């Protein structure tokens, strides 16, 4: 029996085709990032070919640009929002998730159903109501307003996620801690919390990224340039009333995405090692 060329190389051909298809699917994203990076270092582009290289587009890093706030101040604002949202969420969900998972309080099931419904509800539709609340609290044009808003909108869902991680920890682990002479709170802190570290890490990363990339609320509720974050800065380069500066737009865009990409390089390796909710041993 003679095998055909295809049969002899079936495995290789299949893998080759697989890669080709994957590349075709992902190429719009990869190519657009590729274009963005190239564009940020060129005067103009002909398709994918820069006409002339330059670093002028990156001038916002070392000099003030008229009509824009200082980039470092803006970056600091962005980081501030992202980190605060992260801290709030981690604090609340690590406790709330435990309560949802372990305590049998009245209304627990309906609460969990309600959280699911809440999550499906688009927060943009709350805009007007939020405006009045923030105004009443005197938090308009204030980054704290954004932080509290983000954290409170995301906490219910993140709590649900954390509950999943807590559900994976056997009760006996907790009982062992109680028998070993600790209070329930101490057991949570010394035994249970370290075991759901993967969950805390996931929650923290997602909270950070959502704070970092927040745009709609910033655009709506922040008016002063001194409170701008990077998303607003990028938006401004597109310009409602000025001429769009594509070079600047590309450079700021790359600058904005950089921390996200770096973070993913560090964390993805860590996250892949963890099965969601699982503890070994």
């Amino acid at each position, binding site marked *: 029996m003679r095998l055909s060329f295809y049969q002899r190389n079936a495995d290789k051909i299949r893998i080759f085709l697989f890669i080709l298809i994957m590349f075709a699917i992902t190429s719009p994203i990869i190519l657009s990032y590729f274009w963005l990076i190239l564009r940020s270092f060129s005067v103009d582009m002909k398709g994918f070919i820069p006409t002339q290289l330059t670093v002028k587009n990156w001038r916002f890093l070392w000099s003030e640009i008229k009509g824009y706030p200082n980039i470092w101040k803006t970056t600091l604002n962005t980081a501030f929002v992202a980190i605060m949202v992260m801290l709030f969420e981690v604090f609340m969900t690590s406790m709330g998730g435990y309560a949802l998972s372990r305590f049998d309080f009245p209304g627990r099931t309906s609460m969990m159903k309600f959280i699911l419904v809440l999550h499906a509800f688009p927060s943009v539709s709350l805009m007007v109501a939020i405006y009045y609340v923030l105004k009443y609290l005197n938090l308009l044009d204030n980054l704290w307003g954004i932080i509290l808003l983000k954290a409170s909108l995301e906490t219910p869902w993140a709590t649900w996620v954390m509950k999943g991680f807590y559900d994976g920890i056997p009760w006996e682990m907790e*009982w*062992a801690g*109680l028998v*070993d002479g*600790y209070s329930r709170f*101490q057991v949570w802190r010394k035994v249970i919390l370290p075991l759901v570290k993967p969950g805390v890490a996931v929650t923290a990363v997602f909270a950070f990224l959502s704070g970092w990339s927040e745009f709609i609320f910033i655009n709506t509720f922040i008016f002063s340039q001194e409170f701008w974050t990077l998303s607003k800065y990028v938006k401004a380069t597109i310009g409602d009333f000025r001429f769009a500066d594509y070079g600047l737009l590309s450079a700021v865009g790359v600058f904005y995405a950089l921390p996200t990409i770096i973070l993913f390089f560090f964390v993805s390796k860590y996250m892949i090692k963890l099965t969601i909710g699982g503890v*070994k*041993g």
Partner: protein
Amino acid sequence: MPTIRVVNLKKYFGKVKAVDNISFEVKDGEFVALLGPSGCGKTTTLLMLAGIYKPTGGEIWFDDQLMNNVPPKYREIGMVFQNYALYPHMTVYENIAFPLRAKKMEENEIKKRVHDVAKKLMIENLLDRKPGQISGGQQQRVALARALIKQPKVLLFDEPLSNLDAKLRMMMRAEIKKLQEDLGITSVYVTHDQAEAMTMASRIVVFSRGKIMQYGTPDEVYRKPKNIFVATFIGNPAMNLIRNLDYIKEKGKAFLVSENLRLELPEDVAKKIEESKNSGKFILGFRPEDAKIDQKESDMGFWAYVYVLEPLGRDLIINLKVIGTEELIKIFAEDEVNIKKDEKVFVKLQHGKIHIFDSETEELII
């Protein structure tokens, strides 16, 4: 070491009566086993002793102190869980030291104690590893070390050997027993393995469906089982039963009979039956080692066919089908017997080694 007294203890999970009104006592320094099939409420009882579950009703006393509302950390108990429940993020050393850290003990003292107990349990070389990096048997030792380190007044075990292989289980069985004897700590040991309970405990609480069936020494529950449940649960192979028997008297002699079977009863047994409150139907029980095979008929026994032979090396188990009732029984054979499949033999029962239960209540009559 305290005496544990459990009085009318109950635990309901909604409609499920996991533990239903039980009372027993564990004496100072005693080793008591809670024995029963899966789901009968053993773990629930143990968790109430530990203070993790709150009883639905009843009382738990340690000596003269009511423990119902005492949280686990004040009970001075050590516990070994079924799946060990070692903390996966801590090293073996940290696991064992964990109960001492709760007491804010000095680091030097902790170190000394951890090494002492690790040495006793032969796990000193594992102290730097994580629980995920040691074998099941070693994990079991670590769990034991963690339970022992704070020198508890009461030790609770929840099927600590059920995850080990047969050989290791036999070894640890003896080791735990020795350890408990040396330390003299009042211990409650949960198991569903009757051999474990028989070999280790000084008394056994036999459980079924949340209720206590019998509480006694291994010898008592073996020799004088209070009911059919205990009789069949304890002993391997189980006690032989011949059901559905009637009691009759002919010419001053007493018999248990069914259609094709006729068993003459000694006088004292007959008297006990007559004195008892009974439903008129009886179950005869006898242990595999308490019957003998014979070729000719004699006073107390019945005829049976040899069904299957099971050689065990040292022993031979003969499976027989009772003629007339078709019930299958098992008998330990004496070494010299020479019997073949399908042969008809006489099963001779021994005076004083038969048990008679009431068919309805399944309680022991004699």
